[in-house]
């Protein structure tokens, strides 16, 4: 029972971070600040969602796969934001 409550809470927190990240994307003026908002908020949001699903996972293997998804998403997000930030010094119209 506690696990379900925990899952619910973590899910809500995760979605909140996603919302904040999207808000940042819409509000911030230039590329780099948007990148900042997206990579930080969304990855944390994804982490929380994954943590929320871990207790619901049927077996340890499934939980490990969920965490692997998060790790890969982190690496991919870091690389793409680095490339975007580095290659576009002036404002991207």
């Amino acid at each position, binding site marked *: 029972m506690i696990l379900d409550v925990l899952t619910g809470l973590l899910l809500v927190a995760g979605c909140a971070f996603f919302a904040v990240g999207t808000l940042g994307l819409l509000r911030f003026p230039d590329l780099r600040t948007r990148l900042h908002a997206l990579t930080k908020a969304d990855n944390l949001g994804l982490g929380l969602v994954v943590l929320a699903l871990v207790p619901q996972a049927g077996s340890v293997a499934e939980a490990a796969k969920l965490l*692997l998804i998060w790790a*890969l998403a982190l*690496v*991919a997000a*870091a*690389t793409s934001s*680095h*490339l975007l930030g*580095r290659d576009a010094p002036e404002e991207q119209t």
Partner: protein
Amino acid sequence: MTVGLVLDLVLVTAVLVSAGLALFVPGRVASVMMFLVFGLVLAVVWARLGAPDVALAEAAIAAGVTGALLLDAVTERPRRGPDRRVGPRWLMPLLGAVAGAGLVVLLGAAALQAGPVEPGTGLGPTVLDRTDDSGVSHPVTAVLLAFRAYDTLLEVAVLTLAVVVVLSLHRDGRLETVPAPGAASPVPDALVRLAVPVIVLGAGWLLVAGSSRPGGAFQAGALLAGALILLRLGGIRLAVPTGRWLRPAVLVGLAAFLTLGYVTVALGQGWLVLAEPWQGTVILLLEAVLTVSIGACLAVLFVAGRRPAAGTGRGEEP
């Protein structure tokens, strides 16, 4: 059921919005970006409709490799040449909208009415109870590689043919002249070194899982192609076989499938008839070769689209 309904509505609107934007948004780059989103949302739709294999394939092939192909094409030419459209700008879209709406109503009505003579008599049930004597335990793989193996053979021929035709567009057909610039930055190299082993491991797992769970040669092959493309973008030239080894790598899948056919007919049982004892192993072996070949084919499709080095690859035909 209302929660399910809400989920469906969210999904349907997401698909419609992303597809609409992918088709009608002004810029080319924006259109490709929205297409990637569309591909991922589609993978969720397949999962919702109870088709895990198709969801895996959609995420790996359609959103993955197709996305890479489109992105690479659009980065070469982000802006399009002058539009040669003639006639008033509003006429054609209006006609298109009216015709489209009529078609949707007509086809939708017909599709909704289409129901089997008596429900539940589909081919699915017959497949389910015949799966165990096909050598694999997962019904979709059984259909793909045992019951309808001829379909899959022709499909591998389609993929191989597409690659051969793309090679015929290149002057030397060996893709040696296509440069492989490194990303000249430590971060992508770190990603390559970290992600590629995991992806290859994932491809291997998908291949083996195919006989008992959703997975199989096509999803594994697409994952492998993703790894090869990542290596190529990381500046490692020989990741995608070019030069002498290009054509054997591309053709090995189709060649293996055909040899299986020739061997079975030579043994006198008839085309593609797999005898009882070693059915499962033969299918797994075939899937392994198919994975490598599909990975090579999709990676070559990515490399062959790129602009060859100046002065060698353009214009005149061999």
